[in-house]
């Protein structure tokens, strides 16, 4: 059920991200200052949190509490270390709060793999899902197109790709209002014989599913909107997404360079690009509500960009709040149950 008037409790991994903990704490403060029924739990070693809080002037009357963790994940840790030897790290403690029912959502700007593993281990998967996927909306260029997985899983098994197709289809229906979204596998050619082992095996699974599967598409088909849902492993998806996000920025530079002898025309380039392509700015600031969520987890876990500053964390907190209020996990759970009941999953 959607939660409209309740206080939404959000845990933030204060130690995750390139600019942690300072920018993460500042972002939490920005969100709390909005006084929009949010209660924030900053998770990290308490001594570090208290010192940084003091450095920031110890702002009071904010709905922020500290939750202690003994440790935190560093770039040199493997994702699975959050289960084995870093089970008391800040992201592990934050995700455990979801399972305990103490918070409604978690924000993590640290190592994405570690956030995903924490979510799988300590929150758990929805029935029918084995691995979570991150959905990216390619709406600036490719109208009504979603890409997944855009980074949660480096390697994917064929049946995991199928489950991403189902999640993508459910989301596309809900987001775009399309009754039967087209779904495609991303490959090196349209033929079923193209692609790596996982893609070729997945092709058969997709053909035998009840999804509106249109076959495989190539990279050059994506921006043309050939499919509403484009499925690939997180390794491919993450590379593709980052390339996609860079297109508008570099196109702007290229156009300005070409217009260098026409100062009046050149002066119009920035406003036009900023208006038409929000991603020409720092893309993660303008992410929509579906982006960054680990879809398939039995709770709302939102991955924020590793290079996030305070404003991005503030945005991520608000986005997670909206996701809780809209009960996106409950909606996905209900849809997955229907698929399971109908033997489609």
């Amino acid at each position, binding site marked *: 059920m959607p939660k409209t008037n309740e206080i939404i409790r959000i845990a933030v991994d204060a130690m995750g991200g390139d600019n942690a903990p300072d920018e993460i704490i500042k972002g939490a403060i920005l969100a709390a200052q909005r006084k929009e029924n949010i209660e924030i739990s900053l998770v990290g070693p308490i001594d570090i949190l208290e010192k940084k809080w003091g450095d920031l002037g110890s702002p009071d009357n904010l709905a922020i509490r500290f939750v202690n963790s003994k440790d935190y994940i560093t770039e040199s840790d493997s994702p699975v270390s959050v289960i*084995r030897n870093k089970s008391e790290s800040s992201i592990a403690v934050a995700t455990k709060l979801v399972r305990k029912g103490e918070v409604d959502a978690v924000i993590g700007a640290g190592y994405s793999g570690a956030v995903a593993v924490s979510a*799988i281990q300590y929150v758990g998967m929805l029935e029918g899902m084995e691995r979570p996927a991150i959905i990216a909306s390619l709406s600036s260029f490719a109208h009504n197109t979603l890409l997944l997985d855009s980074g949660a899983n480096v390697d994917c098994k064929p049946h995991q790709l199928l489950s991403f197709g189902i999640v993508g289809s459910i989301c596309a229906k809900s987001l775009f209002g399309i009754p039967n979204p087209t779904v495609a596998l991303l490959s090196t050619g349209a033929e079923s014989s193209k692609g790596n082992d996982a893609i070729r095996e997945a092709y058969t699974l997709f053909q035998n599913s009840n999804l509106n599967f249109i076959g495989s598409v190539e990279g050059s088909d994506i921006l043309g909107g050939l499919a509403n849902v484009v499925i690939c492993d997180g390794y491919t998806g993450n590379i593709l997404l980052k390339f996609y996000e860079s297109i508008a920025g570099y196109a702007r530079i290229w156009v300005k360079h070409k217009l260098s002898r026409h100062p009046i025309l050149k002066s119009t380039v920035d406003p036009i690009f900023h208006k038409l392509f929000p991603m020409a700015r720092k893309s993660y600031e303008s992410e929509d509500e579906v982006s960054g969520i680990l879809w398939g987890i039995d709770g709302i876990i939102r991955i924020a960009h590793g290079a996030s500053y305070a404003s991005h964390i503030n945005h991520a907190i608000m986005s997670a709040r909206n996701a809780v209020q809209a009960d996106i996990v409950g909606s996905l759970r209900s849809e997955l149950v229907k698929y399971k009941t109908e033997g489609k999953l």
Partner: protein
Amino acid sequence: MSVEDEMKEIIAGIVHVDKSLLSRTGTFKDMKADSLDIVQAMVAIEDKYDIEIPDEEAQKFQNFGDFVDFVEKRIAEKGNA
């Protein structure tokens, strides 16, 4: 149910394979298990038998049989303690 059968059931549930595919000479690689599957299986087995499987010991396992032997040994040691 023997420890070996219980372990098969746990691992098959985590890796999502038929437990009949697990033999003493089989490996996680044969099951197409990824690193998360392997760690989840180890943690589940540690929890089930209340034992510890150090990473350095786990790295020595050549196949499922080695894994079973190690776990049975640790259970026996615990019983004798």
